[in-house]
């Protein structure tokens, strides 16, 4: 598995495929899960390992749901590209998928950096603390 920095550098450069960007999203989530001392799941949810990984990463950590829609958008764009490979907007869709994968990378790597500083997501702490 690539390091987070390597994933970031690969996403910074455009030219990847939908499979590359989906894989980057999965690897990013694997880093988060491993950092919490767990083995990343090999299962799928709604046909995507990415979504199963997100669910695993958010277990006991509601603030991780702040990247739930980002993961779902990544899966949606993968489907768009896989189902309509000859669509006139393929280039634009790929670029958008790259930026979505980049957002997931930035969110997760940022969240890992600031673990010691407090909650990254302002919306969820009261839920985590059970109030």
């Amino acid at each position, binding site marked *: 598995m690539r390091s987070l920095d390597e994933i970031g550098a690969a996403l910074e450069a455009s030219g990847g495929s939908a499979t590359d960007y989906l894989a980057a999203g999965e690897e990013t989530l694997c880093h988060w899960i491993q950092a919490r001392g767990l083995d990343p799941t090999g299962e799928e949810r709604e046909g995507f390992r990415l979504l199963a990984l997100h669910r695993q990463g958010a277990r006991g950590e509601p603030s991780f749901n702040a990247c739930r829609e*980002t993961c779902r958008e990544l899966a949606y764009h993968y489907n768009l590209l896989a189902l309509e490979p000859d669509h006139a907007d393929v280039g634009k869709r790929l*670029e958008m998928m790259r930026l979505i994968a980049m957002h997931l990378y*930035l969110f997760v790597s940022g969240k890992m950096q*600031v673990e010691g500083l407090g909650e990254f997501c*302002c919306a969820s*702490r009261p839920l985590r603390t059970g*109030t």
Partner: protein
Amino acid sequence: MSSKEKEYKKVAYYPGCALEGTGHAYNRSTKALGDALGLELDEVKNWNCCGAMEVKNIDPKVQTYLSSRVMSIAANEMGHDVVMAPCNGCYHNLKKAEYDLQNDEGSKEVVERISKKAGHKTYEAGQIETIHALDWIKDGIGEEGLKERVKNSLKDLKIANYYGCMYTRPRHIFPEKDQGEGSESTSEPHFMDDLLAAAGAENVDFPLKTACCGGAHTLSDSDTSTLLVSNILQAAEKAGAEVIATECPTCHSGLEMHQIRAEKKFGRKSNVKIVYFTQLLGMALGLSARKVGVHENISDSLGMLKEKGIA
């Protein structure tokens, strides 16, 4: 006139702290929009901070009390049953307080104890319906009502609508959302899209409309916030947007400030303009750019809006 139209004709208005500071343009444009649409705002008397992030992170029950006090004044001292909060943080916190008071005995006890000590009537769950400015326009006027009043169409303006995270998360404090046709969606919100489309704008397909902007760590980890915002701005531009429409003062100022910082710190320049949806709707109704506070935005959109014939 539907029941919502009647209910929202005159509501208690809770601007919150940000709208008296960095989000002043949102305050100004919300009030101007209300006037133009014949919707009356009755500002909550002697309102206090909703507890925002700061109090919530230290003692969530005290935040519940602070939000409940605002609702108590609106309900018990002013006779309202609807409070409109245009700030996502305030809106979220009032909703969370409502949820806590319905579901958590510990929160109820704390609220009762502090309310007694403070000398006001304790807020009881169910007295107030908290709505966002988007609900206020969407249900109080509706797309058809807006279309009838548009004097200055936003046509040819390509908009990416950015809702931020607190407008829809966590889902369970927004029981009225995800209720099928006509209701707001937590996974793909669309009220702002609907209203701006009714005013003639072209909404672009924008996949990061609820993505995290790192707002909570804008001071403790500014670089991460800047990179997240920069990515949102870049995605909006790549989606073809000329403007990002906002509906929260924190999101708005975060996007504006990190747009500048992204260029200075990382050399990432973006030209997309950041404008409150209330400013855009106000101008569509024929209000001047000044009346809706475009000059108060940091993101200088006036030239572009003039070019488009909107300002």
